[in-house]
């Protein structure tokens, strides 16, 4: 685990010593403010639409953050160094996830001003805000894990970002497509869509199904990343 933490700390430092990490965080904070204004146009101190828009934005953020994890490292030649060092592949994958997870924490902290502002002006439901942030981390980690798997499979950062965005969009839209189907395919596609698992977080509930879904996404993403790295080692 120590090796994973070392990799995570190195990645986190590298991200915030670059204009890319700072820019991503600042842009996400600014976007959250704009989205808040749109959300509050309903004249209600509710943040469900705000969180829902942030979850979609998380897909873009995950695509951007994970393109540096493996694809960028391969392009610059540092991935070979990492893969030939005496660390296990799962430690590398977990370390990379913790690294981008650290960025996620900073990004979440940068958005806290929004609920605080709403709380200062009105009376939002604190339970729904709490579950909104729990959802933010779960959804974010799930998306980042998918991004890591895609990033591990390519040496092009651009392909990595586009691939992650496409994979997440396909998952998300699967639920929409399921609307036209019936029976088991409908149930399975609905279940596989993240859109079906975020509503509880938006309303103020934490469901075992939703936690299991995003937990599985993290495990599956990490396992896929490890498998791809193993095949390339």
């Amino acid at each position, binding site marked *: 685990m120590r090796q994973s933490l070392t990799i995570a700390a190195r990645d986190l430092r590298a991200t*915030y010593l670059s204009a890319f990490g700072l820019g991503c965080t600042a842009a996400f904070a600014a976007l959250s*403010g*704009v989205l*808040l*204004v749109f959300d509050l146009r309903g004249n209600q101190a509710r943040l469900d639409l705000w969180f829902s828009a942030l979850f979609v934005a998380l897909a873009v953020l995950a695509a951007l953050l994970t393109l540096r994890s493996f694809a960028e490292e391969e392009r610059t030649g540092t991935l070979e160094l990492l893969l030939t060092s005496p660390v296990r592949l799962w430690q590398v994958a977990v370390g990379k996830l913790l690294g981008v997870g650290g960025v996620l924490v900073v990004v979440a902290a940068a958005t806290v*001003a929004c609920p605080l502002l*709403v709380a200062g*002006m009105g009376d939002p439901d604190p339970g729904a805000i709490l579950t909104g942030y729990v959802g933010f981390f779960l959804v974010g980690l799930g998306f980042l894990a998918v991004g890591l798997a895609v990033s591990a499979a390519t040496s092009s950062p651009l392909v990595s970002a586009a691939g992650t965005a496409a994979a997440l969009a396909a998952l998300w839209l699967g639920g929409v497509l399921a609307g036209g189907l019936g029976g088991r395919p409908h149930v399975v596609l609905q279940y596989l869509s993240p859109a079906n698992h975020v509503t509880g977080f938006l309303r*103020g509930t934490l469901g075992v199904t939703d936690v299991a879904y995003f937990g599985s996404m993290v495990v599956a993403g990490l396992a896929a990343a490890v498998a791809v790295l193993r095949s390339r080692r």
Partner: protein
Amino acid sequence: MRRRGILAAVVLVSVLVAGNLLAYAHNAQADLSAAHRFSLAPETGALAKRVRSSLRIIAFLNVSGPAARDARFLLARYHELNRRISSTVLDPDANPGEARRYGISKYSTVVLTYRGRRVDAPQVDELDISTAILRLVRGGTRTVCVLTGHGEPSLDDDSPDGLASVGQILAHNAYQVRTLDLTVGVSPSVPRDCAAVLVLGARDPLGPAEVATLTAYARDAGRLMVVASSLSTADPNPLVNPWGVRFVGGLVVDPQRSEGADPGNVVIEDLPSASPVDDGVSRLQFPAGGGLLVDRNLRDGLTVEPLAVTSGGSWVESQPDKEIRFDAGDIPGPVVVATASDDSRVEATGEQRIPGGGPRIVRTRVFVTGSDTWLTNRFLDKLGNRRFFVNALGWLTQEEQLLAKTAQAQADDRPLPLTAERQARILVLTVGVVPGLILAAGVGARLVGRRVRRRRHP
């Protein structure tokens, strides 16, 4: 190596699929929302299990509003309880055909259909939806008859001393209320469709003919709820004595277990019975109540369960107008304040369910309390009073899983007008200040790092 990899992948996928299937089948959830708006009561869960074929819920709402989003989520909880329950949220303006088909002319109407029957609910909240489902599943409403003509508090009275909350419970449990006035007519009788007769706090004495009518009704497999009023001159004994209960009147006081400074506002923690009336009730608040005594020598077939008993430090004050102190003439505690009598006997003839008749079992149930104040709007939601009444009603009418949930505001109205000043404040802080601070912190960190490196390697 390759085979091991495939095996590991298969095992991992199996574990993930099994875990998700398990979570899907038993979807527990923690509800942190205000007032737990999205947690369905256990009675709703039991009610949903009684839905045996497709039940469709169509909520006609403004689909772009927050109410529609909450409605979808709440209705999805019903679907999780029973997959036969499905729901749709429709905008009547966007779907005029559907709206016309169901005769909908305004927002916030919910239509439930089941086995060709239809019931409408006024809004998407648990109480209204579950009440409608109860009506659909039951296939109709049942009637309870409420005795009038003796100054009883009204079921329409929403003042603190009225019984409007009791009326709402009856309505939410799909009971039709019929007033029963036995003081008029030549030979008044209890209508045959009365599932139970409720005598709720009669202030004036019942006439002998009324008592005879109600006793005859009860004897013939009748169901009677007698909520005596200790504040009145009406003596409920002629009505309850045949069922092994005696009303001793007075005022039950319990200085050690009462609310506030009023020793007559008794809190009851001893609910010794295994009767379903006590299910889920841990404490009751029975203010201004009289005591009950249970006959020691009960006839065969009659059982009387003391449902609620005050503590050993209580007594029945025979002179409540004077100083509250235990003295001669008072009845020492523990005092019974609620009972359930069950009288079963076999009659030689009368069975109608089998051809040719035969002996039939006649079962009478009588529920008695020595106070009527606990049922008033002021006290019904204190401690377990609401649940106690609902349980008693269910026990009398042999209905399972009646709804005791208190109506709660499902509409989550949190007004926050977005003024130009507020919008500007949000944008300045979130688009200007916060990103600026992040960038400034990053630039500052780089400058400090560069200076440190220069010092180390000049």
